[in-house]
C-alpha cells in the first residue's frame, strides 16, 4: 500500500485528534470538526449554520427543533474553553440565511456576543451569509491569510493552491467494514488544501467522492472521519461512494 507523500501522523489516542502538515504548517484536526493552528493559536471552524432550524420553520417547511443554535454554540464554547485560542475564524455560512441573526433567541445572541468579545474573531463570508451581522463584534473578511495558509469559505477553483483551508462542502466519507457501511463527517486534504467538515448541529454532508468535491482535490487525497471519540484516517481508495437518495 503506497501512501501519499503528505502522510498524516497516526491519530493520537489521547484527545482523539490527528495532525498533518499543509504547506509546511502544522495543523491539528479535532474530533469536534474544528482545526487548530497551534503555533498561531488560531481555531478554525466551518459552516456553523446558526438558525437553520428556524429558517425552515419560517418558510413553513418543517418544525425542526429550535435547539440547533444553542447546541452549536455550546460545542463552540467548550472548544474555546479547552484550547484557549487567541483568534477564532469562522469559515463562512456561519448563519444559515441573512434573516438568521434576527431570529436568534436573546440568550443565544448574548452568548455569541460574549464568545466573540473574548477572542480576535473573524467572520469569513459565505454564500449563505454574504454579509455577516455588524452588531455581533469581530471582523468580516472574504479571505484571511495566516502565515503561509489562506483561509476562505469555498475552495478556489482552477488552481492548485499552496496551503488553503476552506469549508462550504460539508464533506463526509463512508467506509465499508464487516459488511456494514459507516459514514461520518470528515476532514479531507490532498496536502495542498484542507476542507473542513460542517460544525453546525443540523448540517448534513456531501460525500468526498462526489465529483463536485473530488474535482478540487489531487487524486491521492486522504480523509479523517469523525468517530464518536476520535478521528480515523483513510486514503481515498478505501472510501465508499454515497448510496443514491430519492
Amino acid at each position, binding site marked *: 500500500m503506497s501512501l501519499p507523500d503528505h502522510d498524516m501522523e497516526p491519530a493520537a489516542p489521547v484527545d482523539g485528534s490527528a495532525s498533518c502538515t499543509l504547506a509546511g504548517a502544522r495543523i491539528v484536526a479535532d474530533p469536534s470538526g474544528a482545526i487548530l493552528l497551534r503555533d498561531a493559536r488560531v481555531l478554525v471552524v466551518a459552516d456553523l449554520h446558526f438558525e437553520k432550524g428556524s429558517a425552515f420553520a419560517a418558510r*413553513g417547511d418543517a*418544525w425542526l*427543533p429550535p*435547539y440547533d443554535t444553542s447546541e452549536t454554540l455550546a460545542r463552540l464554547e467548550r472548544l474555546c474553553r479547552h484550547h484557549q485560542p487567541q483568534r477564532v475564524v469562522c469559515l463562512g455560512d456561519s448563519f444559515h440565511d441573512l434573516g438568521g441573526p434576527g431570529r436568534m433567541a436573546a440568550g443565544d445572541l448574548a452568548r455569541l456576543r460574549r464568545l466573540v468579545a473574548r477572542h480576535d474573531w473573524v467572520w469569513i463570508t459565505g454564500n449563505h451569509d454574504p454579509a455577516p451581522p455588524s452588531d455581533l463584534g469581530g471582523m468580516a473578511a472574504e479571505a484571511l491569510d495566516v502565515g503561509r495558509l489562506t483561509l476562505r469559505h469555498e475552495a478556489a477553483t482552477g488552481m492548485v493552491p499552496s496551503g488553503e483551508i476552506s469549508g462550504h462542502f460539508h464533506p463526509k466519507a463512508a467506509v465499508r467494514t464487516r459488511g456494514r457501511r459507516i459514514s461520518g463527517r470528515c476532514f479531507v486534504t490532498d496536502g495542498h488544501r484542507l476542507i473542513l467538515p460542517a460544525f453546525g448541529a443540523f448540517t448534513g454532508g456531501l460525500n468526498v467522492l462526489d465529483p463536485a468535491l473530488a474535482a478540487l482535490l489531487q487524486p491521492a487525497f486522504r480523509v479523517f472521519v469523525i*468517530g464518536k471519540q476520535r478521528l480515523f484516517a483513510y486514503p481515498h481508495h478505501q472510501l465508499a461512494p454515497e448510496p443514491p437518495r430519492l
Partner: protein
Amino acid sequence: MLDAAQRGESALLIAPTGGGKTLAGFLPSLIELAGQGEARAEGLHTLYISPLKALAVDIQRNLEQPIAEMALPLRAETRTGDTPQSKRQRQRRQPPHLLMTTPESLALLLSYEDAPQIFGDLRCVIVDELHALEDNKRGDLLALGLSRLSSLAPQCRRVGLSATVAEPERLARWLSPDGKGGGVRTVTGDSGAAPDIKILETQARLPWSGHMGVHALPEVYELLRDAGTAIVFVNTRAQTEIVFQELWRINDDNLAIALHHGSLAVEQRRKVEAAMARGELDAVVATSSLDLGVDWAAVDLVIQVGAPKGSTRLLQRIGRANHRLDQPSRAVLVPANRFEMLECRAAVDAVTEGTLDGIAETPGGLDVLAQHVLGVACAGPVDPAALYDEVHKAGPYASLSRRDFDDVFDFVATGGYALGNYEKFRRLFQTADGLFTIAGPNVARDYRMNVGTIVEAPTLKVRMGRGRVLGEVEEHFVNYMTEGDTFAFAGRLLEFVEVRETDVITRPGRGDAPAVPAYMGGRLPLSTHLAVRVRATLAEPKRWRNFSGQVREWLDAQLWRSVMPSADGLLVETFPRGNKQYLVAYCFEGRNAHQTLGMLLTRRMERMGLKPLGFVATDYVLAIWSLEAAAQVDQLFAEDMLGDDLEAWMAESSMLKRTFRNVAVIAGLIQRRHPGEEKSRRQVTFNSDLIYDVLRSHEPNHILLRATRADAASGLTDIRRLADMLSRIRGRITHRELERVSPLAVPVLLEIGRESVYGAAIDELLGENAEDLVAEAMTGSDVKELPLV
C-alpha cells in the same frame, strides 16, 4: 346483518374468506336504496373502505352486476390515488351513491371545506379487511376519520368485515362509535369445514438452519403438479425469488408458475393477478402481498414454505384456498429447518384447536393524531375541546389523555417546543371566537401532499438496461453492491451495473446462483402464541412422537448433551469455541425482541469485563460471543437492563432513529419527498438522525420522542415483549456450562455470517478496519478467521 341494519346498529361480521362477506356488507344498503325508489335522494349513501386499492376497484366491479340486475339507477365509483383529478373534483360536487376508497383517500376528502356537504347524508360506512387495519397506523388514521364522519353524519352506521381473529371484542371496540364497544352487534359467520393441513415430511435432509426451504422444492413441485391451482406462500421477498427460480429450474412439465411480491412493478403484479383470476396459472409464488385481496375461486392448494410465524396468519393464508365453505381448504406446510419443524407443528396444532395469536393492544399513534388534527383544521376552524371529545371516541384513542392531546395540538400549531420559539411561524391561528384556523392555503396544500401513514424506506427503481422498470428495491440493499454482483429479482438473475439518479441499472446475469443474498423485505417475528406452544413441545418429549427421525434424533441428542428449555423458564448455555466464549439463550421471543436483548446484554457484558464481540438473533434463539466466559447469568438477565441501559442504548440505536424518522414524517415535522421534486426540494431533505440527537438532548420529553418511544415498545425493538419475558423468567433461569456447542445451539451458530451480525460500537468497527489494513499490509495476505471452523 339485515336486522342490525334495520335497527340502525353498527355491525361487525367475522367470517372466513369466501363467505360472501363483502356482499353481506353491501346488501342492506342496496335494499335500502332500492326501496327508496323515485324518492331516492342524491348524495353519498354508503362509503366502502379497503386497505387495498385493487380491492376497492374489484368490489366496485362486482357491485355493477347486482345493481344492473336490480335495475337500480345507482352510481358506484372508486376514489383512490389513481383516480384522475377531473373525476375527483366531480365526485366532490356530485358524490356517487356508493363510493369505494382507501383510508388515505378518506382522510384527504375529510380535509376539504366541503366535507360536511359530501358526507352529510351518509348512511353507512363499510370497513373491509378490518383485521388488517386495526393494529397499525393506517387503522389509527381510519379510526380518526370514522370519528370525524360520525360528527358530520351522526345517523351513519358502521359495518366492519373481518377474517377470523383471536379477540373479536377488540375489533368491536375499534369499530364502535364510542370507542368502547357499545352499539356494535357482532355476527360470526359459519366457519365452514375444518382445513386439511399437512406438514411436509421431506425425504431430503432437513437443514439445520436457513429459511429458504430449497431442499424440499422437488417435493413441492410434485405437489404443484398434482394440484389444480396453488399459491406457494413464503416469508420474504428474497425467498420468493429463490423459490421461484428453483421451481422453474426443475419445471420439466412446463407448469405456468408466476411470481408476486410487493417490490414488483404494479403492472406486473396486476398481470399476475389477472392471469390467476382467469385460471391460467398453475401456481404463484407470493409473499404477504397476496395475504389480502381479491378472491380467486380456482385456488385449491396453499403451500407455505418456511414456518408461518403466527397461527392467525396461517389461517388467513389457508383461507386463500378453496372459497367454498362446504369443502375443506387444503394446505401443506414446508419447514425450512429443524426449529421451523417445531414451529409448523405448533401452528397446525393451534389452527386445529382454534387458538389464534393475540395482539398486544397499542394505543393510537400520536404522530397519526397530529396528522389528523391538521387535516381537520384544513377543513375548517377547530375547537380543541370538541375535537378532543371526537378523537376520544375513536377506539385506538379511547384512553388518550387531554394532556397528550393538547401537546399534539400544540405541536401542530407551533412545533410544540418548550421554548416556544416558533410562535411567530404558527401553522394554526386562534381567531377571535377562540377557534383555530390554518395560517394559509399552503398549509392545506402541504397537508395533502403528506397525508398517509406509510413511510417507505427510500427505494430505487430496478431497470433492465435503460429500458423497462422491473420493480423497486430498498436503498440499503444497493449500498453493498458493486458492478458485476448478481442478484435475483422479478424472477430473473440480474447483474448490477450502476446506480443512475434513482435507478438501479442492471443487465441479464450469467450463471445460476445469485451472489448477493438479497433483501429482507417483509419478515415478521414469531408470534408469542406460537412461541409458547414451541416451548411446551420442547419441554415434553412425549410430544416428539410425531416428528420424523432426524428431528427426534436432534432433540434426543440435546437431552443427552444438555437439557431442554422448560415451558416457562429460560435455558442459557455457555461454551467455548475456537478462542471465543459463546452464550446461547433460548428465549423464543422473535427476532426483534432478541436483537434488542442482544444490544442490551452486550452492553452489560462490556461493563462486566466479558469483552463481548458480537451477537446474532433468530426467531428462537440469541447467541452472543465474547472473549471471557459469562458467569452469573441471573445477574446478566436481570430486569433492570430495561432501565438505564435501555435509555442509553436508545440514544444511539439506529432502530430508534428509523422509528423517529417515520414518526417525524407522519406527524408532519419533516415533509415527504415526492417523485419529481427531489431536485427542487433537496434543501428540505434532512438527516433525521441529527434532529433526533439534538431533540433528545434538549427536550427529551417532546411529543414526537414520546411517540417514538411508544412505537419502539411494540415495533422494531419489541421492548414490551422483552419486558414480559424478563419478568417471566426471573428465578427460572437454567444455566448449563458446556464443554462444547449443544445440538440445539448449532442452528443459531450457523446463522453467523448469514444474518446481520451486530458487533462493537462504531468506533471499534472503524478501528478494526484500520487494524485489518495494518495486518494486511504487514502479512501481505488476507488473514481472516472464520466464525465456525
